[in-house]
């Protein structure tokens, strides 16, 4: 070194903070030659140890400018909390959902001939389903996470429309009139538990690690029921058709009621809306701008890559930088007040 001056202050650093052997105050500081020798020995040992480290060698083989590795168990805990919170207070408007059933009535007295067909339609006029989520189980599978989420549907009241139609056939058609009955009744969603299956796809674009859920099963059978008063009202309406001219005598209202109860028990198929699931950014991101001194430095990412192995989610990219313009009023920036007592 051809240093002549100006190193005194910095040299003091070595006296105060440089490495010291713990051999006591008499031990002289290592000479430059000794430092170089120890430095070289340590460097070689470190290099050899690094080559044996599977994680280090994996990073070094990638040749990316930035690598982010996230433990999968942390990603799991994060996504589990997200899924739990996200689905915990969801309200679904179930209006206009419908289900139907139909059947055929055959008369023994007529040798088993069909005397008519009935159709039963159930339409939800006004009902909101409220979901509460349990704690999900997650399993990593290549670039995606399979999620099983227990969801509880809370009981909720609403209005349900029933449409019953009778279509006479054959000989019965001669004497029986067709008829339709429509009733709007007080009903409710029953408290029930379901398991939602989701696949969360992990992706990396523009430096953003994103988790995008996709519902594996979009249709849920939602069990509903009528109030006891509504059931009585339905029975009464069907029995009112139980006359010779209306062919209710063939229809057997109790049979229709049983079909209706079975339909409610099976549930109304609810197609979960697309907007129910949304992608979310994971908290570790590659930034596209940094600030150095008074300048904003714009960055562009190259070869962004995402990889998942048994215990790590890897995101990496090459990065090129171009300096942004320095704000005209920002330079010079480093003026400092004199240190009291400085020479």
């Amino acid at each position, binding site marked *: 070194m051809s240093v002549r001056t100006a190193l005194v202050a*910095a040299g003091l650093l070595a006296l105060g903070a440089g490495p010291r052997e713990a051999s006591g105050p008499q031990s002289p500081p290592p000479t430059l030659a000794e430092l170089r020798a120890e430095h070289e020995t340590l460097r070689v040992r470190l290099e050899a140890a690094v080559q044996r480290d599977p*994680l280090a060698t994996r990073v070094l083989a990638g040749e990316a400018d930035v690598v982010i590795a996230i433990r999968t168990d942390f990603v799991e805990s994060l996504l589990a909390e997200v899924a739990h919170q996200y689905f915990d207070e969801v309200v679904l*408007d179930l209006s206009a959902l419908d289900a139907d059933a139909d059947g055929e009535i055959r008369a023994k007295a007529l040798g088993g001939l069909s005397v008519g067909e009935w159709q039963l339609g159930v339409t939800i006029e006004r009902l909101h389903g409220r979901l509460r989520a349990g704690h999900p189980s997650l399993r990593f599978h290549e670039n995606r996470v399979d999620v099983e989420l227990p969801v509880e549907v809370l009981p909720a009241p609403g209005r349900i429309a029933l449409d019953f139609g009778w279509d006479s056939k054959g000989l019965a058609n001669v004497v029986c009139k067709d008829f339709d009955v429509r009733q709007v009744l007080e009903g409710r969603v029953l408290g029930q538990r379901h398991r939602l299956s989701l696949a969360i796809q992990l992706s990396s674009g523009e430096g953003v690690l994103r988790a995008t859920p996709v519902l594996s099963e979009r249709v849920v059978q939602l069990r509903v029921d009528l109030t006891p008063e509504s059931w009585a009202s339905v029975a009464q309406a069907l029995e009112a058709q139980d006359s010779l001219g209306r062919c209710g005598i063939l229809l057997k209202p109790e049979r229709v009621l049983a079909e209706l109860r079975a339909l409610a028990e099976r549930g109304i198929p609810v197609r979960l809306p697309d*907007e129910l699931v949304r992608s979310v950014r994971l908290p570790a991101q590659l930034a596209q701008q940094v600030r150095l001194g008074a300048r904003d430095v714009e960055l562009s990412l190259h070869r962004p890559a995402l990889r998942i192995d048994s215990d790590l989610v890897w995101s990496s990219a090459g*990065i090129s*930088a*171009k300096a942004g313009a320095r704000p005209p009023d920002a330079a010079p920036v*480093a*003026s400092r007040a*004199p240190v009291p007592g400085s020479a």
Partner: protein
Amino acid sequence: MAWRHSLYALLVVVGGGAAAFSCRRLAPPPSAEELVLQREVQKLRAEVEAAESGTLLDFDQMLVVVDQELVQRLLASATPLEGDVEGFHVRIDTARAEFTNGVALVHLDGAASVVGRAVSADMSVYGGLDVVELDPASGVLRARLGVYAVEIPKADLLGIDQPARRLTKALAEGGLEALLGPIEVPVRIEDRLRLPALRTRRVRIPALDVPVAATVSSVRVFAGRLWVGVKAKVAVEADKDCADGAKG
């Protein structure tokens, strides 16, 4: 930053002509190479010990690895850089980064002149990314540059020997940081995971807000890279349980 405190303390000792230092006055001050080697040896010992015991990359939840070439490019994009420090005009023309030997070494070359005087001298600053942290506001990973040594080879010839000592001290005690600022690394660890509320004809979903507590827990420097371990946890569950408990 212990070394800064040590530097300051020793500068005070030198300024006062303390007896403890007098025996060393006979020996030439350590060169920049020596100062850097001392730091690297100190760090290398720790890295080798960790590497040979299999704990070199024993990170918690996240590991961020930054290539020295990227840091060098970032620094290059910020140069030339100039400003006034303690009565000096300092200009940084080039920057090099070397992350191979336990220390995230940054070597800045430029010139310094006393404000108001025409004469200037070439200057080299040897520093290192000593403090790596997450910016509390933005979550951006950033590093603070500590000064290990400043060389102004012709300071005596140019007659700025004494002032140059002040410059060294001023750069070490925040002047360089004021000039360059913290070095931001393009990685952001956000402190929460958010989704806005959704209200459509079919669905009502409240806003999602999952806090994530993250801190830098380890820093290693080897193989041309800065290896930063980050400890992170989802902070909501305990809080929620506490809140529920308090309600109950």
